[in-house]
């Protein structure tokens, strides 16, 4: 696929681009990624979905230089993560899945400062950036708390603050809510949503309801990029969903079955309204 697909915001070079990227884990017969190509424009919000083992996590690690592609080219903010990982990591931050295993320091403040310390930021500047980042995730007052006294949602917010403190242009979210309970997930998504207009975001997830506001959705299955669609087209394609072991959450699924547009209807309120509107106008699709 060379064409970035529908719904792309116009203008400018790519923030992230992958060209025919392939990667196999040593000792594995199947490639984890096979000739994957796509581009992310600055300010875009792109979702990545697909079954486990399909290559999503591998992609994340290739983008920030934790892994090197066997073939193909990757460019992040005009740099190659394989040869300039440090420069890339200044501009691309990753929020990982496990809230516990991303926290390094015994206190929240210190952990948020960790990235800034690595980048050699001067101390007087760090104080302000740490405070701002903590505020951006709603954790004022938590500065001297210890990680194991926090809930899952709070831990992920600390991790997010740690990434925001280094002010990256690009955010990659690797299933950030899959180990959280409903309350935690809601918390984290709320703060992620607030970031959307300013950053370029690549959001890997199983929870399709998190992607209703996305510009595009990429589907990775068995190492291949199967699809690159707008949410509207994607969520209405039952075959595509089934083949990729994806399941719509309850409300959009009801909507789909009732012949109503699933992407615009993600909350019970929206669905109820739409049902009433339809019943009132007396039409049927």
């Amino acid at each position, binding site marked *: 696929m060379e064409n970035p697909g529908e719904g792309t915001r116009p203008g400018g070079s790519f923030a992230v681009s992958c060209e025919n990227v392939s990667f196999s884990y040593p000792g594995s017969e199947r490639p984890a990624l096979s000739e994957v190509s796509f581009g992310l424009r600055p300010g875009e919000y792109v979702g990545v979905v697909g079954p486990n083992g399909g290559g999503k996590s591998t992609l994340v690690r290739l983008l920030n230089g934790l892994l090197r592609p066997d073939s193909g080219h990757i460019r992040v903010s005009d740099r190659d993560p394989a040869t300039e990982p440090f420069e890339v990591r200044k501009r691309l931050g990753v929020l990982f899945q496990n809230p516990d295993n991303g926290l390094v320091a015994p206190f929240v403040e210190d952990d948020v400062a960790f990235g800034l310390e690595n980048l050699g930021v001067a101390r007087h500047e760090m104080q302000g950036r740490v405070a701002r980042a903590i505020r951006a995730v709603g954790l004022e007052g938590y500065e001297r708390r210890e990680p194991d006294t926090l809930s899952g949602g709070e831990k992920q917010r600390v991790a997010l603050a740690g990434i925001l403190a280094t002010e990256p242009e690009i955010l990659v979210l690797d299933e950030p809510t899959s180990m959280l*309970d409903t309350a935690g997930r809601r918390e984290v998504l709320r703060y992620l949503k607030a970031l959307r207009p300013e950053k370029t975001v690549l959001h890997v997830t199983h929870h399709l309801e998190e992607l209703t506001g996305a510009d595009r959705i990429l589907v990775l299955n068995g190492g291949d990029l199967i699809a690159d669609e707008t949410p509207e087209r994607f969520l209405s394609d039952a075959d595509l969903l089934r083949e990729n*072991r994806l*399941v719509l959450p309850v409300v959009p699924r009801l909507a789909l079955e009732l012949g109503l547009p699933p992407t615009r209807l993600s909350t*019970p309120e929206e669905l109820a309204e739409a*049902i009433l509107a339809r019943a009132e106008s007396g039409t*049927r699709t």
Partner: protein
Amino acid sequence: MTLELKDVSHVYAPGTPFEVEALRGVSLVVEPGEVLGIVGGTGSGKSTLVKHMNLLLTPTIGEVLVDGVDARSLKKSELRRRVGLVFQFPESALFAPTVEEDVAFAPRQLGLHEDEARERVRESLRVLGAEELATRAPFALSGGEKRRVAIAGVLAMKPEVLILDEPTAGLDPATRQDLLALILGLREAGISVVLVSHDLDEVAEVADRVSALHEGRVRAAGTPAEVFYREPAQAPATVQVVSLLKGSRPEIGAPVRFKETLETLRALRGV
């Protein structure tokens, strides 16, 4: 068996500055052959409650009764065989070199004959759809596969009641649906299942009855329709949608599961 908790209260670290009352006056009954859903947010006491069912924790006040008999009078190993508990993220406790060996742990601890133990292993793996994994190393499996093996390990004790604490946590939606189908299958086989979950949609699909916990107390108990329609703000999506339509369509009824909700909604629009 009928497993009952009668007025159970539990205080952690009594008399110290860390004293915390996790459960207060909780009563519930697990009837034979049913799926009981236990719901509540973090801090509601769900996990504490569930550990009382096999006496990993003992009540500070109150009793745990198995078929009317005080569970404390039973041999611990006997109780834990009959009431199987699968913790959240149970795969973190896998330890044997092969899946077979791991699943055989519980049967062997029970003192079963080697042949019978192997038979139990085979049976449990079959129920979980994990037979091909038998000779694999647990640590090399995917998250979903490990989860199945861990559950098989408890199922191998042939418990009468199986408690699952957040069994779908961290799983992708398709695997989650497989697990829910499994729970229904276990009920068909006569095993009572206690499903502890923060995910109301999933509880809505499989539970026969529900107990809702809030801050250590039982907020509501009854059929899913009774419990969820009482508090639509904290209900599965299906119930929320229907509750919102009740105002303009009072005749609408009280469906909880997806299929019945869909039928109800279709009927509404005059299809």
